[in-house]
């Protein structure tokens, strides 16, 4: 049964879990993206055809 308390606990823990995982992802991204830019440069944008 869903109670106010269970919604509260799930909500708080869910938000912080989601944000914590995003934090780790950003840290990882910084390492990976920095490394990949060290030996390659982004290609110029190509014209779109739509």
């Amino acid at each position, binding site marked *: 049964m869903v109670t106010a308390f269970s*919604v509260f606990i799930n909500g*708080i823990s*869910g938000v912080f879990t*989601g944000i914590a*995982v995003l934090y780790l992802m950003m840290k990882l*991204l910084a390492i990976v993206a920095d490394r990949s830019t060290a030996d390659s440069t982004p290609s110029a944008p190509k014209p*779109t055809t739509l």
Partner: protein
Amino acid sequence: MAFFEQLGILAVTPGMVVMWLVALTLIYLAVGREYEPLLLLPIGFGILVANLPLTELMTPGEGLIWRFYHYGVEWEVIPPLIFLGLGAHTDFGPLLSQPRLIFLGAAAQGGVYATFFAAQAFGFTLQESATIGIIGGADGPTTIFLAAQLAPHLLGACAVAAYSYMALVPIIQPPIMRLLTTEQERKIRMKKARKVTVREKLWFPVTATIVILLLVPASAPLMAMFMLGNLFRESKVVERLTDTAQNALMNITTIFLGVAVGATMSADAFLRGDVIFIFGLGLAAFCVSTACGLLLAKLMNLFTNDKINPLVGAAGVSAVPMAARVVHKVGAEADKKNYLLMFAMGPNVSGVIGTVVAAGIFLTMLE
């Protein structure tokens, strides 16, 4: 005579007149004071026309504005499209340069849950309490999205409360910020953020979508569109789509959203005792969210040498970019050369993500 029988003026009720005054007040605030005019103007006009008798604009299956509401809001189309535009406007650079600030956006959801509990105490159902609580996230489209799913009868009041308080950020937040911080704390200068690479910005919307949707699938409509808009922006290969999402599409959907939300506020639905509680609780949610962001920043300072100016925690409520501007202004009062705007944008955009996640969890548990 048939002509006189269908005269609208004969069907006017006192409740309708009150709603006209509410509508005119919102229109005045939008035009005269420029408080969130893009939303409050169509909302105010929507209230006005929906409370003119015999117009049948909101008659289910027939009314013009009912169709806007039904296919746009109830079908969950318009809020995600607005999020597409928001994503196309959002620069995650400030957040990526200081990832730890993302927690301030999470802390600012404290007001959402505190108010959820408070609303319960006032006798609202779980669904209604969640809808009222999400006002504290200071995110209009998310409030509307959640209200349409959980408590459609509260949609109009919650939307107006959310947008009104977002417009009043410069008035509501500074006293709380000054109350919870010392002069010395407000003067803290944060270290210059590192430069964010193009690749980081490009990969962020893709990886964040995967991470968030794996954790909270119910947030998909808003989060997916938000990140798609951001991918448009950061890819730099679809300038036309970015421009459309940022401008034309967002403007069109804003018109439909504003009028439809306003039109849900009939006298019967709005002139009830519990609406006063909704506005009161919404304000409390906003204040508690501001305080939670500030307090977490102060707490984080206990464990780090690289100090955070606690004011930036107040930007954890979404209200982009108004809350960040207010942080900068209050910080500048203490130290004119302290440039906090870009630091505050980090928690500001993470607040958007936090509110969407909170809404997704409410939907998962209560729909």
